[in-house]
């Protein structure tokens, strides 16, 4: 039977939390109820990336891109689109029926993207190994097992120039080669899926949308370096990703793509999942290995590096999810193909989780060398609610802010470092004029202080002290000597901490201090918060010229701080006011101002 329509329903965590699972089942039920079950195939895929507009439903072959779909819409989608062949205009992204074959790529969000890592996300069913195989999956493994020597694989990876996508950007081929050269007969391959940066969900989406790409890559690496066992370390708070990985591993074992004598090559290899409890420090490779071994996740001094002494003291290759997902494509299409994408410093693409105050938040994959301006304004659609752009934080709690002045810097490992930030794993949080830079720095620092394992003093004590100083500043108790002290503590943390968590924890403070010194000064000298965010430094006041005395705010105020006669300007009692902002939201005449 030939299907006429294919309905792709996004099954990423974002869309699932908006009931895409119900949409999926409702579509199947409706198709049967309306007698078209034989014409349409409903497929649950991985993340489409356009999370802002989720849940996403795409219907082929018309390529109709439906957004913000609800389970209740299933009936209409089947009745109109599938039965009668009319697009449901109100649910289309651009709200207008498109001409024949205007493609989804025409949507601006997708225009500047290039999908290598996310190649199968949103187009295949991640819980069906056959679809992965059909999309070219396990071709790379085949090539590695039967046509290439391990040295060929290393050479190909070297030509490709893939650098670790976990943040540090270390050449992947080198890691593999170090482990390959070790003579120890027992070696391991590890996938770091302990994604922990605030706002980052690249690895999660990759695993949810295309789990086999990671399994295949780890098997390729195992064969190349001489390992027979792999581990995926993933946080327990990613249940959907874990489930899809388990399904994928089960299917791979049934096909003998994992296990003994893979494809008759004589090569044995299997993978196990290890669940982490969600400690940020376990994303650091030595802490991660400790955790897999069953110890408390604390970083160890390097050298020795895991490549020579890793898991249980054996040579271990450890790469991050996104790095792995690139590997099969490199093997199939060749290192030169990969090297032709991106910049001389960084080849290939990078996936970013674009969040914060942008219009189109979501998962984006762009060639290295794309500028931040393109990501934030072209793909991201600019700042939401017509506000002014202030800065972007890249590299999570280890990175820094990037301001308007550097928006045109091409993004690659070197480029971001030069402007005081870092690639990190790919979290990208956009801030607008309403965000207080001191408050943001405090947020990240609080995060690293919470997540510090406590092993070394510069991180454990330094982080807390920095936090206290920032707290003091946002409370209006800052002194001019504070800035000097911040710099001193930050310096001590950078040189004295054992792992990257402590070494980079001061970065958000230092970089915000570098780019927005005037904002720190306003807090310290003038006791003002220019963005109106720090509650201790602001007061709500009613502009008597604008207030018409409608009493709306007075009735809404939860603490009764607003008084006045009807039809006459009201007043806020600053001693009682808790600065919750309800009055400002209530006022229809913009009479309430923050000072």
């Amino acid at each position, binding site marked *: *039977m*030939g*299907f*006429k329509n*294919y309905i*792709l329903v996004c099954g990423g965590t974002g869309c699932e939390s908006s009931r895409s699972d119900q949409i999926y089942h409702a579509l199947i039920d409706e198709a049967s109820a309306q007698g078209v079950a*034989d*014409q349409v195939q409903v497929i649950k895929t991985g993340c489409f990336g356009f999370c802002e507009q989720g849940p996403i439903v795409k219907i*082929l*072959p*018309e*390529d109709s891109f439906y957004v913000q779909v609800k389970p209740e819409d299933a009936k209409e989608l089947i009745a109109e689109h599938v*039965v*009668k*062949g*009319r697009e449901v205009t109100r649910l289309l992204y651009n709200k207008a029926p498109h001409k*024949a*074959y205007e*493609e989804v790529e025409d949507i601006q969000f997708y225009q500047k993207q290039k999908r290598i890592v996310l190649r199968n996300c949103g*187009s*295949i069913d991640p819980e069906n190994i*056959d*679809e992965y*195989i*059909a*999309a070219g999956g*396990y*071709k790379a493994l*085949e090539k590695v097992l*039967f046509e290439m020597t391990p040295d060929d694989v290393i050479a190909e990876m070297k030509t490709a120039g893939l650098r670790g996508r976990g943040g540090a950007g270390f050449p992947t081929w080198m890691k593999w080669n170090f482990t390959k050269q070790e003579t120890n007969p027992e070696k391991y391959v590890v996938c770091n899926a302990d994604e922990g940066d605030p706002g980052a969900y690249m690895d999660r989406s990759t695993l949810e949308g295309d789990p086999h790409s990671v399994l295949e890559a780890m098997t390729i690496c195992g064969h190349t370096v001489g390992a027979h066992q792999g581990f995926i370390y993933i946080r327990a708070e990613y249940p959907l990703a874990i489930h899809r990985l388990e399904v994928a591993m089960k299917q791979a074992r*049934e*096909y*003998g*793509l994992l*296990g*003994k*004598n*893979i*494809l*008759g*090559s004589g090569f044995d290899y299997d993978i196990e999942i290890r669940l982490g409890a969600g400690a940020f420090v376990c994303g650091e490779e030595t802490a991660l290995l400790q955790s897999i071994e069953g110890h408390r996740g604390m970083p160890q001094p390097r050298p020795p590096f895991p490549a020579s002494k890793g898991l249980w003291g054996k040579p271990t290759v450890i790469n991050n999810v996104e790095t792995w997902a690139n590997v099969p494509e490199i093997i199939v299409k060749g290192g030169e193909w990969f090297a032709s994408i991106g910049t001389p410093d960084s080849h290939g693409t990078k996936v970013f989780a674009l969040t914060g105050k942008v219009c189109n938040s979501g998962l984006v994959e762009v060639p290295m060398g794309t500028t931040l301006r393109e990501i934030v304004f072209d793909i991201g659609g600019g700042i939401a609610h017509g506000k002014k752009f202030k800065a972007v934080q890249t590299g999570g709690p280890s990175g820094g802010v990037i301001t308007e002045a550097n928006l045109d810097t091409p993004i690659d490992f070197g480029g971001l470092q030069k402007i005081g930030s870092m690639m990190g794993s790919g979290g990208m949080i956009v801030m607008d004029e309403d965000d207080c830079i001191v408050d943001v720095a405090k947020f990240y620092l609080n995060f690293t202080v919470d997540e510090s394992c406590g092993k070394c003093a510069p991180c454990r004590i330094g982080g807390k002290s920095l936090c206290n100083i920032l707290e003091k500043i946002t409370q209006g108790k800052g002194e001019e000597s504070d800035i000097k002290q911040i710099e001193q503590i930050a310096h001590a943390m950078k040189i004295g901490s054992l792992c990257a968590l402590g070494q980079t924890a001061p970065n958000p403070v230092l970089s915000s201090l570098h780019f927005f010194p005037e904002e720190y000064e306003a807090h310290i000298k003038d006791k003002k918060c220019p963005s109106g965010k720090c509650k201790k430094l602001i007061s709500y006041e009613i502009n008597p010229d604008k207030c018409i005395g409608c009493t709306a705010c007075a009735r809404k105020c939860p603490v009764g701080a607003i008084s006045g006669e009807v039809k006459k300007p009201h007043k806020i009692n600053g001693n009682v006011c808790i600065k919750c902002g309800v009055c400002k939201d209530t006022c229809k005449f913009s009479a309430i101002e923050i000072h």
Partner: protein
Amino acid sequence: MAKLSLSDLHAIREREEKNLRKRDIHGKTIHVVVAMGTSGIDAGAKLTLNTIADEIEKAGLENVIVTQTGSAAPNPEPVVEVYSPDSGLVVYGSVGSAEAKRIVAEHLKEGKIIEDLRIELKDKEQ
């Protein structure tokens, strides 16, 4: 013993690739539209549509996309439109199962316009 041999894997890939390629919207040159309004369905357009979809599958045509539209009345339904770069727009009327098979075999596969099924499209009455 390996569970899956290399040739098994190739067989799976070949079989599944065909299915996956049907979802691909690139590289489609011929567009078939079946009028599936109430009057069209009443005249048997569903059977027509299913026949066309099945025949395309059987013939292994990969450059064809089949979609549907609303009512084509007052034309003799079921109405099927075929757009292709070579023959432009051709409209067929009273397309039952047998005619549908001919359209796939003669027009889609061989590029020949079937003159005896061809109709002039009359505008819809509002």
